[in-house]
């Protein structure tokens, strides 16, 4: 089967533009030419493409106004070096690593300050001093009271009871045991 006969119209239409521009390889151009000789429709399309191309070429060439050129030169005077576009992956990895380091550091600081005991203020120390003195004063108060009771007990046991007993004996009266001891000290 011949290649010329095989070329369908849609393929031929796709090749028209590069053909008009002279960009097709010779073999392909020969095939297309063979198809165009037998296909009126595609040959009409080729004629249209050539007419459009010639009309575009006949348009006048416009020059850029000099003031615009001057402005572009003054603003874009610096030569911008070409930098190849980076892929996003390394930047993202670096950002994630930095974030991790910051998070760990921040977390460590947060925990550190949470655990740090707060230094009491001068007022709190003065308050604590007052409370310590109060505790001692309370012990003093209790021991004063208890000391008095002990002394009373000692007096009752050593002086009052013997005296009562001797007076009762001399009077021939049965003595009654005094009230139980008020305090005891082991």
């Amino acid at each position, binding site marked *: 089967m011949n290649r010329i006969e095989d070329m369908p119209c849609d393929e031929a239409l796709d090749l028209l533009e590069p053909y008009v521009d002279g960009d097709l390889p010779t073999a392909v151009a020969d095939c297309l030419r063979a198809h165009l000789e037998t296909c009126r429709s595609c040959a009409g399309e080729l004629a249209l493409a050539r007419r459009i191309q010639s009309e575009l070429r006949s348009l006048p060439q416009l020059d850029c106004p000099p003031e615009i050129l001057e402005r572009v030169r003054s603003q874009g005077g610096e030569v911008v070096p070409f930098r190849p576009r980076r892929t996003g992956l390394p930047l993202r990895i670096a*950002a*994630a690593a930095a*974030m*991790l380091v*910051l*998070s*760990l550091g*921040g*977390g*460590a600081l*947060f*925990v550190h300050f*949470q*655990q740090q*005991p707060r230094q*009491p203020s001068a007022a*709190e*120390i*003065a*308050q*604590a*001093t*007052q*409370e*310590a*003195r*109060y*505790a*001692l*004063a*309370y*012990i*003093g*108060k*209790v*021991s*004063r*009271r*208890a000391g008095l*009771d*002990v002394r009373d007990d000692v007096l009752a046991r050593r002086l009052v009871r013997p005296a009562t007993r001797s007076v009762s004996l001399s009077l021939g009266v049965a003595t009654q045991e005094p009230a139980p001891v*008020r*305090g*005891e*000290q*082991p």
Partner: protein
Amino acid sequence: MRKTIIPGLALVLFLAASALLAQAPQKPQKPAPSPGFVPLAELNLFPQDKLSAEVNLEGAILRLVAAAVKQEDPAFSSMVASLRSINVQVFPLAGIDAGAVKTKIDRAVHWLEDRGWKANLRVKEKGEETYIYLKEQDGQIVGLTVLTFQPGDEAAVINISGRIDPAQIGRLGQSLHVQQLERVPAGKKPH
């Protein structure tokens, strides 16, 4: 989209890092309690919200107190410097049935005796009771606990732990007066 993901990721990482660090083994915050320490809160002698005075001082603040009064009152400073804790609870008994409190005082006395505390003084008179208990370790007094119960007036428990010289505490206590100290405005004491 990325604007919301990155801060969110940072927050998640921050919280995760904080949680991990918080779980990490840390230095013990509090030393083991002194053998002369009595956990008043555990004994639950008095209702906490009805105390007329409460003192809870521990090692660090006691050392600061000792340093603060060193020049002005050297005896008090040296006594406080050797203490590990001072705890006081005073509960007013005026106008209330003191029976329940008396029962709790008796229970506290048993609690102390069960744990090797020795009675230094027991005074019972006209319904009033006072107990002074000492705790010894290796021939040294390491704890002093005073329990007092005065119906119609107040009940109190005082626990002091550390290196204790009862004579020194007695001397200092005799020189101080509760009434004078009560006139000075204080945070926790009296409420």
